[in-house]
């Protein structure tokens, strides 16, 4: 094998083209890893939102909580079904909730967008074990108070602690920020069920019933019963399934990511190929010499491929490193299932970064392949004659 020192020194000697190519491939990897980080962030937010034993019960035909209505009578019957877990004080772990959409202004004159407000009873928080107040305090019932996440407060006007959010001209005071393990709940504003339905002037309205089954068998039996029994005829799905169905936004972003990644990789391959063609052309006599003194075609091919891969890997590493400052940065996108915004954080986990590295390797290998083949196809005596 031709020593790798040969490739490294050549890259250093031609440092201007090396830097340009590294920057080009780095930019491509950065842009693509960013989109993968986005889709991974959304998927993470939705995936961790569901507990396998939790079931969401909605009106038949409803696609999301926001388009569901259930009567109080039905909700009571659901909560009394056998097979539902009990809270420490013996209450069924069953939460009746009202979910509504408000159109509210974004901060920094970012226009208006939809926000989900959820009215819950205290038992609803037991169904979200990761729910915890991280700043301020939790709401008191009956006094029009709300809590939300820090990321929502950053994105929407009037959601900082102490500020007031108007719901049908009634002021709801923000008293605290909560975290819910990065789940979809962090894209919502929570208040007391009765306060919210009162403000919306639909007292007693319920959107969904959320309960936790005692075990998988009970869960499956309850889902079947709620869907098939004449007195219910409801839509019942596991929480996991419910949030999976909402991942369409992330799949769209992921698809765009692959599309952009594919096109950009293709483009960057030409940048790498161009650099390597120039390298082969300017080093024809060196190639002839190496082959004359006994290095095989395979060695020369491998050497130029290695050089190309080193070039693009440097770019890949740079691109991946450049995404890290954005890791955890929260942003939002439309959740088309609920017609509201979902906030989430960029996630550049190992698999996202690995895809960036793989892209760089593919760029290097494919970009270097044709120039390397040109290098080995040259006849030795012709190469030696090159100036």
């Amino acid at each position, binding site marked *: 094998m031709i*020593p790798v020192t040969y490739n490294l020194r050549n890259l250093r000697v031609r440092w201007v083209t090396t830097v340009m190519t590294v920057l080009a491939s780095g930019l491509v990897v950065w842009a693509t890893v960013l989109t993968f980080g986005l889709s991974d962030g959304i998927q993470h937010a939705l995936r961790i939102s569901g507990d396998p034993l939790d079931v969401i019960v909605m009106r038949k035909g409803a696609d999301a909580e926001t388009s569901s209505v259930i009567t109080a009578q039905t909700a009571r019957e659901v909560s009394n079904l056998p097979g539902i877990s009990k809270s420490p004080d013996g209450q069924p772990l069953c939460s009746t909730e009202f979910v509504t959409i408000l159109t509210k202004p974004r901060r920094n004159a970012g226009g208006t967008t939809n926000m989900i407000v959820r009215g819950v009873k205290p038992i609803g928080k037991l169904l979200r074990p990761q729910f915890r107040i991280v700043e301020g305090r939790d709401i008191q019932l009956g006094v029009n108070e709300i809590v939300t996440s820090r990321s929502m407060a950053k994105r929407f006007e009037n959601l900082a602690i102490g500020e007031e959010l108007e719901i049908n001209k009634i002021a709801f005071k923000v008293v605290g920020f909560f975290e819910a393990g990065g789940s979809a709940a962090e894209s919502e504003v929570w208040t007391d069920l009765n306060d919210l339905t009162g403000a919306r002037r639909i007292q007693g309205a319920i959107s969904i019933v959320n309960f936790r089954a005692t075990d998988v068998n009970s869960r499956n039996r309850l889902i079947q019963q709620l869907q098939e029994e004449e007195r219910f005829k409801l839509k019942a799905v596991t929480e996991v399934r419910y949030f999976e169905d909402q991942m369409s936004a992330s799949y769209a972003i992921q698809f765009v990511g692959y599309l952009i990644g594919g096109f950009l990789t293709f483009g960057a391959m030409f940048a790498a190929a161009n650099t390597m063609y120039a390298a082969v052309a300017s080093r024809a006599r060196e190639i002839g010499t190496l082959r*004359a003194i*006994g*290095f*095989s*075609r395979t060695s020369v091919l491998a050497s130029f491929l290695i050089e190309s891969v080193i070039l693009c890997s440097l770019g890949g590493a740079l691109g991946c490193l450049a995404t890290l400052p954005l890791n955890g940065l929260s942003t939002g996108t439309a959740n088309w299932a609920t017609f509201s915004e979902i906030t989430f954080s960029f996630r550049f986990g190992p698999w996202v970064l690995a895809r960036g590295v793989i892209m760089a390797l593919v760029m290097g290998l494919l970009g270097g392949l044709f120039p390397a083949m040109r290098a080995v196809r040259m006849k030795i005596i012709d190469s*030696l004659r090159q100036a």
Partner: protein
Amino acid sequence: MAANQSDALVVVNNVTKEFRRDSFVIPVLLGINLQLARQDYLALMGPSGSGKSTLLNLIAGLDRPTSGEVIVCGTNLGVSSESKLARWRSQHIGFIFQLYNLIPVLTAYENVELPLTLTRLTRRQRDEHVRAALEVVGLSDRLDHYPRQLSGGQEQRVSIARAIATDPTLIVADEPTGDLDAKSGGEILELMRRLNEEFHKTIIMVTHDPNAASRAKRIVHLEKGVLVNTNATPVGATA
């Protein structure tokens, strides 16, 4: 010192070589016969385009004849595969080029070490070979110099060190003094004479410089692809 075919190191038997350029066939060598014994020092002379470099390339295993046989160190080069030829060259041939052909990004030491990386020598053994070769050419104090930091004569001496580092059976030199001034050229020719006489290396040198050719033990002339005057003995050389 022409050799019998049986004990010759190089045997060129009725070799022709043609090049194709588009639809044209250009004959370059026309029925060449030549033998070279071990420890011989042959100068191949002739005007430009006479085919001397082509003949040298055939003997060095860089190209194949159109017809005839080229047998060097017992290997028929015309029938060997590309990869076998590459391995064979690394074991048997040391190259000295007119333009030195050093790798510009490698130091003198690394350039000389390059052909040794194709052998099974350990790093330590390689180091001994490199230092010994650079000692022979008088450049022990230039190990870490890059080619651009050396004069033309010094570059050619590094190139000679690279050619002898693997202790090859045959050294082929294509116009080794063609790019050097008279003084540096003289030093290179003296070095090649030492390689032949003190280190018993077999050398074939292509040159059109009669002064350079006169240092060889034997001179052959090529004209229009045909060998003429194959027994010329240089003045002052031992036959």
